[in-house]
């Protein structure tokens, strides 16, 4: 089995670190500003991520990470201050997490919701625009 690293991001405060420590997973764990990085053998990692999904539900988001933990190639200090390229998107996605969490909660509660297709034409109808302009001069 090979070693994998995962990034666990919390949308709001969750005591991930203490819980994982308590359950004594055979993993390397590092706390970060957005949650934790965990690293270990695939099977143990699966047990840990299943546990976190059960325990923290829609409040945690998990993705794999390519580089091992603390790899100098992605370390800011070694790069002269600049972030690794993936940081900006991660930062942007983290800002969306509270809204995504709420939506997932709604989904669990089976709140009825009508999906709007993304392909719909967002341009304003020309006749509607004409009426608006005419209305301005009445």
């Amino acid at each position, binding site marked *: 089995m090979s070693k994998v690293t995962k990034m666990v991001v919390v949308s709001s405060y969750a005591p991930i670190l203490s819980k994982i420590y308590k359950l004594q997973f055979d993993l390397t764990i590092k706390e970060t500003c957005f949650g934790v990085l965990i690293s270990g053998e695939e099977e143990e990692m699966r047990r840990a991520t299943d546990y976190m999904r059960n325990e923290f539900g829609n409040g945690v988001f998990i993705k794999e990470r390519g580089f091992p933990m603390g790899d100098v190639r992605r370390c800011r200090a070694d790069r002269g201050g600049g972030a690794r390229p993936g940081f900006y998107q991660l930062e942007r996605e983290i800002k969306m997490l509270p809204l995504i969490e709420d*939506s997932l909660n709604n989904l669990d509660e089976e709140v009825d919701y009508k999906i709007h297709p993304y392909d719909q034409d967002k341009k304003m109808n020309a006749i509607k625009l004409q009426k608006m302009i005419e209305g301005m001069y009445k």
Partner: protein
Amino acid sequence: MKVFIFPPTSLILSDLVERFGHEPLVMMRVIRDKVTDLSLDSPPLNVTPEDVKAGLKYAAVDTPPGVRGRLALIGPLIENADAAIIVRNADYSFGCVGCARTNEYLRYMVKRRGIPTLEVEYPKENEEDAKNFVYSIEKFLRDLKEGKKNGRD
């Protein structure tokens, strides 16, 4: 099912695909294989000139090397995918998805494969957008599981 996501580094997409019972095909896995390779020829990502040449499978030699190198990494993910979810307004994607020309071509490659595809947009800062985003993805992935025809299938 194996689902290609774009951006292939997305935390949210990767999480949602896994959460709803599918396997996300992600860049992080490709990079992991590259950077933990014992023979690290071309740090930091170990993308070698040979990889760039392998990109000729997807684009001709007069395509810039940065495009071919990226295609060589991401192209196989699309080839192995059963379905795809694409975020259209991923403006803050850098590095492996930092080149607009490559990204346009990746979307084309997905279309050409004719696999079920969902195109969505990152929610702006409102609940409605977020709900639409999550519910669209959940429905798409549920339909995939139930074998319903989707997207361009």
